[in-house]
């Protein structure tokens, strides 16, 4: 859709853009000419001037102390947070008990039957196999813990998201107020949510669930609102013309019409909840994430993988099943034959029967004899890899050498360069980029976000982090585009790639922490590597799709003109896929930033380390400030790389 709009008025837009660009640049130059001498005279320093920082560590430290001292006495905690926390514990516990009572056979049967009902036989088999695999890997109980946490978190997210979405979907004012908030929340790295909830709820499941809800509800709210607002105006008018009440319109038309978006929202919410539930192991969520985290302590990649695989399996199953359900509903066709509650009844009966059978044969716990130990072979493979690739590989050098060169020749110069730049020139560059690519509003947001970093007093570490992010994004884009081009040209490559991408996208980032260090040593280089691994799948996927969706007519005509495939790629596919490429860049940036904190765990230092430090030491001042700075960086980078939507809207 966007391809067409971007493609046709290409020349017109560029001309216009040039025009606007000149105007904007002149304006900025003018502003700079006035403001910079003032700023320079007043606060002459290369880095952010101390006079302009606000030290939050004392108030934050005090707040944290106050909370710890009053958590068991203050009414706010006793009568509000206490109840929330209690409700969470109660619900998670209930779900967990039900899951345990159903036993492994019952849960597997129930999951497979649900998958069968909503998504068909193939996915039902897949679901069953996935659950059995969790058991085989010796992860049954942790899987159930994660599942219990997920069920509660997803339900809460869906309810919360739907309510917000309804409000925003039905009222323009709420929508306008909510939209930027939701957009921003989608950019924020998951870790940023952990500290504030820990501050209030302390370590444990309630904090984990609430962080998950806060993280996973926005997509639901967003898509609900969009779905409700996007209801076919013709249908809505027809429904109104029949004398429906507002409530009838909502229940019989607007909501059902939005069911595709609602299911997509559910899908996204589930995926985000899962990733958060894993990350939340840092704050005591327990379950699979905790097993991964524990395995790391003994530098046991195999064990980490054994806990990581169930996460991937859960993610893939949940994604496919909800996705398939969404597609079925969207086409609206299949239901004629299978509607009604009866099959559901049968499914429920079968599930209960299996669960009871498990109970009576005393097979509730996963049998110990059925365990498969994958840790050893995996560890051997990892050892082999690190033994043979780390250094001394003939001609190309080992990975450690690459890491060293990358640090010396890329990361250091970029970081030093950024830190060398006077603070106001950084702001100016941000303003220019954001304005060129968006509106004055985006520019303002970006500049304010960047300035906030300075005010928080973490200017230098933030620039350090920024340099890592930039380097990682560059690597991701180069590698990602190359892979995507290959995948877009060959079906087979894409088919081979798909499961790999799935795995990398859902594998908890903790798991590849050790291999990354084993290959690249400790420092910023492995942090960049971890970020690349994490961001690559999304970039590859979006780019491949963008290249694939290029108008076939344009491709055909260029082929008919005798273009070589390289010419086709360069002159037709890439230009036409521009919106997708820009989106890929934006996503790349956002995702890379999301793993900055993981980077902190492998020696990336800077903001990521500060957040980890804050979490580990209970030092909320350091952690929150660094988290805030990451959020600001995220906002700034998002605004600087998010042009498509606005520009197409303007051009239209």
């Amino acid at each position, binding site marked *: 859709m966007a391809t067409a709009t971007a493609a046709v008025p290409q020349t017109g837009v560029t001309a216009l853009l040039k025009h606007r660009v000149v105007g904007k640049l002149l304006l900025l130059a003018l502003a700079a000419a006035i403001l910079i001498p003032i700023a320079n005279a007043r606060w002459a320093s290369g880095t952010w001037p101390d006079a302009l920082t606000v030290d939050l560590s004392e108030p934050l430290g005090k707040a944290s102390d106050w909370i710890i*001292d009053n*958590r068991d006495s203050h009414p706010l*905690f*006793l*009568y509000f*947070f206490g*109840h929330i926390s*209690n*409700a969470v*514990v*109660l619900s*998670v*516990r209930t779900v*967990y008990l039900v899951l345990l009572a159903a036993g492994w056979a019952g849960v597997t049967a129930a999951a497979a039957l649900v998958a069968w009902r909503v998504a068909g036989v193939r996915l039902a088999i897949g679901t069953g196999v996935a659950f059995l695999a969790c058991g085989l890997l010796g992860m049954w109980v942790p899987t159930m*813990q994660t599942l*219990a946490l997920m069920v509660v978190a997803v339900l809460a997210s869906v309810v919360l998201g739907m*309510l917000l979405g*309804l409000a925003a979907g*039905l009222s*323009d*004012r709420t929508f306008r107020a909510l939209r930027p908030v939701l957009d921003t929340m989608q950019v924020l790295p998951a870790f940023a949510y952990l500290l504030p909830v*820990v501050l209030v*709820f*302390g*370590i*444990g*499941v309630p904090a984990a669930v609430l962080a998950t809800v806060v993280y996973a509800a926005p997509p639901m709210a967003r898509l609900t609102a969009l779905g409700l607002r996007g209801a076919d105006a013709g249908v809505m008018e027809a429904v*109104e013309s029949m004398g429906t009440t*507002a409530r009838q319109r909502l229940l019989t038309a607007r909501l059902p019409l939005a069911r595709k978006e609602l299911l997509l929202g559910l899908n996204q919410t589930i995926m985000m909840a899962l990733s958060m539930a894993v990350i939340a192991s*840092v*704050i*005591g969520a*327990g379950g699979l994430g*905790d097993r991964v*985290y*524990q395995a790391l*302590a*003994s*530098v046991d990649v195999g*064990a980490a993988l054994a806990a990581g695989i169930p996460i991937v399996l859960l993610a893939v199953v949940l994604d496919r099943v909800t996705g398939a359900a969404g597609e079925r509903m969207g086409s609206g066709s299949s239901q004629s034959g299978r509607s009604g509650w009866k099959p559901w009844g049968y499914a429920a009966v079968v599930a209960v029967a299996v669960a009871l059978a498990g109970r009576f044969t005393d097979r509730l716990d996963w049998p110990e004899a059925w365990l498969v130990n994958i*840790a050893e072979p995996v560890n051997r493979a990892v050892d082999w890899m*690190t033994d043979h690739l780390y250094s001394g590989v003939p001609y190309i050098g080992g990975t450690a050498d690459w890491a060293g*060169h990358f*640090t010396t020749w890329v990361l*250091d110069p970029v970081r030093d360069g950024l830190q060398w730049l006077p603070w106001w020139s950084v702001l100016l560059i941000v303003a220019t980029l954001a304005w060129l690519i968006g509106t004055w509003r985006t520019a303002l947001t970006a500049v304010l976000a960047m300035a906030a970093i300075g005010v928080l007093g973490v200017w230098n570490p933030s620039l350090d982090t920024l340099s890592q992010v930039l380097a990682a994004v560059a690597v991701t884009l180069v590698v990602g585009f190359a892979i995507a081009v290959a995948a877009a040209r060959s079906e087979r490559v894409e088919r081979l790639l798909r499961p790999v991408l799935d795995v990398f996208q859902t594998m908890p980032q903790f798991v590849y*922490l050790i291999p990354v260090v084993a290959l690249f*040593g*400790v*420092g910023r*280089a492995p942090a960049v590597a971890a970020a690349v691994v994490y961001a690559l799948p999304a970039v590859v996927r979006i780019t491949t799709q963008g290249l694939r969706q290029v108008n076939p007519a344009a491709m055909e005509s260029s082929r008919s003109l005798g273009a070589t495939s390289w010419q086709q790629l360069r002159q037709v596919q890439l230009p036409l896929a521009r919106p997708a490429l820009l989106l890929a860049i934006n996503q790349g940036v956002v995702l890379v930033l999301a793993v900055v904190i993981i980077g902190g*765990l*492998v*020696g*990336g*230092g800077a903001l*990521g*380390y500060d957040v*980890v430090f804050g979490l*580990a030491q*209970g030092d909320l001042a350091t952690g929150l400030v660094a988290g805030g700075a990451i959020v600001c960086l995220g906002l700034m980078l998002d605004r600087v790389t998010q042009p498509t939507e606005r520009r197409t809207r303007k051009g239209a």
Partner: protein
Amino acid sequence: MRTKTTAKPMLRTRMLPAVAGVSALLVLTGCGAADMTKQASPFAGVQGAKTVTLSVQSWVGAQANVAVAQYLLERELGYRVDTVQVDEVPAWDALSQGRIDAILEDWGHPDEEQRYVKDKKTIAPGGDLGVTGHIGWFVPTYFAKQHPDVTNWKNLNKYADQLRTAESGSKGQLLDGSPSYVTNDKALVANLDLDYQVVFAGSEAAQITQIRQFAKEKKPFLTYWYTPQWLFEKVPMTEVKLPAYKEGCDADPKKVACAYPHTPLQKYLNADFARGGGEAAAFLKNFKWTTEDQNEVSLMIADQKLTPEEAAKKWVAGHESTWRAWLPK
């Protein structure tokens, strides 16, 4: 426009179930005060079993303690044990809230001890673990043998060049570990005028991996490390002498210029659990072993890649006299 006018009544009707749901939850959780510092983990105590929740810190020694304690609690005393990995300081908070019942290895947190043990009395001391911990700077023994004088901090600057990495730039690299560990290294480097850059590995896993990679290549390195630690068995390391530790020389974190102390590691229990935890609490108070014992288990877990349970089983089989004494009479 039209939607807006219609939105209000709709919302009102939609809100009803939500309000009802919230109030139902409130009723369910009890209408009065809810003290969340008294809430146990939702995963604890299921299926009628008595449950003990233990905190596992991120280093293997702590895992070894927990593995053996868990094994014995489950096999000998019939408990169900949950383990949660939490960093040290948050673990104190969680212990105070009763979300975990015990910390088996604490390296000394005077602030938290003051707050929770002395002021709030929500945490009770559980006695010595029997292991003495010590933090220090280490170089690999193969390097120390070649250059014996490296083991004195005064000579460290001589070796800065050899200890350089890409990450530390023009200075020598002092490898630090997890942010949760007690460290004065930045201050030490500054106050002792050392030409070194502290590089934080960010996690112990990363640090260990890096050390092993260095060792494999017989490269020199300087690292923050601690004993007891199983890694010494794999990578023999020699401590670098820092200015001697004197009581109170580390009082001001900014002015520290002395070595780290030797700390007898402590156990801590949640106060309520210590009182009403029955056999489990008694067992955990009695739990006491030696550095060698701990290292034996750690090594099995970390190096032979046994599961903590298998490692515990092996150790338990060979040390019956030791653990028999821990069981409550």
